[in-house]
């Protein structure tokens, strides 16, 4: 039953050949024949469809295309074939599918221009957003009753409490790695005991807060952007405005405040967990008893190391919260934007955190807190 599509050309005198098509002329069977069909260029006056067992729009379109190209007449078409050919003939034959592309230099110039304009819009957007936050904060200070305490507590739980296990585990492992790798290098100078200084100072000053900020950016900054972005798409943000709730007060301020408040706590917790991790590995690998390690920490780590970490932490939290909420509020159009903005929120937050951290390093050294 399952025959294949085929064709034969019979010559009948001068330029009166007949191209006889047979078998099923369907999208499923035509692929095998396509190359051969394109090779036909002989004089064909008629295309005979009487032996065609099945035909669909693709078969009809190919027959039309052949008829047009060879300037031939179609004969023997069944009722169905006629109907299909009437429907599809002349559709899309000369259509150019690929969009006409501009020259390379035009495209480069256009893209550069777009980026410049985009950058300007971005700067205006950020400035506008910061202004909106300031004005919303002003309103809240004048009308403290409008402050959304419940939303703040809820966000603090999500940003802070819910992050405890993952931040703790991460810091504990980082403490282990620093202590273990540090000990390997320091032992070359016979200075294994300095591992305590290394772990204590680097985690309290830098890594505890920095790694936590990166973790919070990934966990909560992305969630801020995705939540607010989705709410914008579903017009929840617009619905809020019509009811008289300011999205800045209801959505943005609680999130930014929660991130700013929770970062110092999480950062301190992370530093402690890293020190515990370092003490644990030192206990087993370096022969420094666990409690001795903790005691030494108090001697070798100056208290201003703790202040360095705790001063940086809320700034990092603010940056993460701002980036997440800003990109969330920028979402408009389609769902693709949510993904794009979420990625941007995380990337820009981490980048800004690392840049600011470098400034802080210089600043604190100048202060004499080295």
């Amino acid at each position: 039953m399952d025959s294949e599509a085929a064709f034969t050309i019979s010559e009948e005198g001068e330029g009166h050949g007949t191209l006889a098509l047979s078998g099923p002329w369907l999208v499923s069977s035509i692929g095998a024949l396509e190359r051969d069909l394109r090779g036909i260029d002989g004089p064909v006056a008629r295309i005979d469809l009487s032996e065609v067992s099945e035909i669909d729009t693709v078969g009809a379109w190919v027959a039309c295309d052949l008829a047009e190209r060879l300037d031939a007449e179609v004969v023997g078409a069944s009722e169905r074939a006629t109907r299909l050919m009437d429907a599809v003939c002349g559709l899309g034959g000369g259509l150019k599918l690929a969009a006409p592309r501009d020259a390379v230099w035009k495209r480069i110039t256009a893209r550069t221009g777009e980026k410049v304009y985009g950058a300007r819009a971005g700067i205006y957007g950020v400035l506008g957003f910061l202004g909106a936050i300031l004005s919303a904060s002003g309103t809240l200070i004048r009308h403290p009753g409008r402050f959304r305490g419940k939303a703040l507590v809820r966000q603090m739980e999500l940003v802070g409490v819910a992050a405890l296990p993952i931040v703790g585990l991460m810091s504990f492992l980082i403490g282990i790695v620093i202590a273990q790798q540090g000990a390997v290098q320091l032992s070359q100078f016979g200075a294994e005991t300095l591992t305590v200084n290394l772990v204590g100072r680097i985690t309290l000053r830098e890594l505890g807060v920095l790694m936590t900020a990166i973790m919070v950016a990934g966990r909560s900054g992305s969630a801020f952007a995705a939540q607010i972005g989705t709410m914008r798409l579903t017009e929840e943000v617009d619905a809020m405005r019509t009811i008289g709730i300011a999205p800045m007060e209801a959505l943005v301020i609680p999130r930014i405040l929660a991130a700013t408040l929770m970062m110092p706590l999480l950062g301190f917790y992370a530093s402690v967990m890293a020190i515990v991790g370092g003490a644990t590995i030192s206990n087993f690998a370096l022969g420094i008893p666990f409690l001795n390690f903790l005691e030494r920490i108090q001697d070798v780590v100056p208290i201003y190391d703790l202040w360095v970490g705790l001063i940086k932490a809320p700034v990092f939290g603010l940056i993460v919260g701002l980036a997440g909420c800003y990109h969330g509020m920028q979402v408009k159009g389609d769902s693709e934007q949510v993904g794009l903005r979420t990625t941007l929120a995380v990337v820009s937050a981490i980048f800004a955190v690392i840049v600011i951290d470098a400034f802080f390093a210089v600043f604190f050294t100048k202060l004499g807190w080295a």
Partner: protein
Amino acid sequence: MGEDSNRPGRHERYRGEHPVVVKGLVNRFGDHVVHENLDLEVRRGEILGVVGGSGSGKSVLMRSIIGLQPPTEGEVEVFGRSLTSSQPDEVLGVRDRWGVLFQGGALFSTLTVGENVEVPLKQFYPELSDKLRKDIASFKVLLSGLPAEAVNQYPSELSGGMRKRAGLARALALDPELLFLDEPTAGLDPIGAAAFDRLTLELKETLGLTVFLITHDLDTLHAICDRVAVLADKKVIAVDTVPNLMALDHEWIQEYFNGPRGRAALSAQALEELRKHMDTPIAAQTLKALDNAPDRKA
């Protein structure tokens, strides 16, 4: 050949009576029973409208038939092949013979409309040359009533109605014999909806399609459906033409078709019919009388 005689070969069209047969379908989500012993047969070459209240499981029924929602129990046969027998070959053999238009169009947002139509062609017939595939894609787009520029546009640049047409072009890419439409006119303005109905009817007649059409649109039911299946009480309670359904004594059916909206759709349909016969004196008189009737004066 025996019972296999209705099964089409690779290059053959289905010649049996019922391209879709659903027997004893049960769909349960936890404790929530959506379908209980549902039976349905779709006749070849008809437009079958499927109606039912919100949450009556119209979309679940469609998803069960096209294999997106494995039924809890029961049998689904498409083109005489059982899709519930869990033989992957059986399912694969029919996937290129149906087209599905999802409610939102479900176009791939990173591809242009033309590329969207090319996707199923590439998937099932990689042997087609690039040129032929692009030609096919563009004539399908035009066949669906979109302007030629639409081929190179992205779904986000199209209006809702155009997106549905683009979705239809993709559903028609493989020249299916069976077309599933999930609320094709939902969210379209009345002009767009009527145009889409006309397109569906035209394509069905030209291409010889069998159409399974989920809808809430009473005008669609009156204008293009050959039969209508009513989903209520977890099963198909009736499958018949609209006039016959309206004669049935069932509360939901009566409320649906004889409610104010049902009546409005019906009278619109009747007026349309009358206008077609304007040349006969009786129709012209009736129309005149209707126009003068007090409640029709604007």
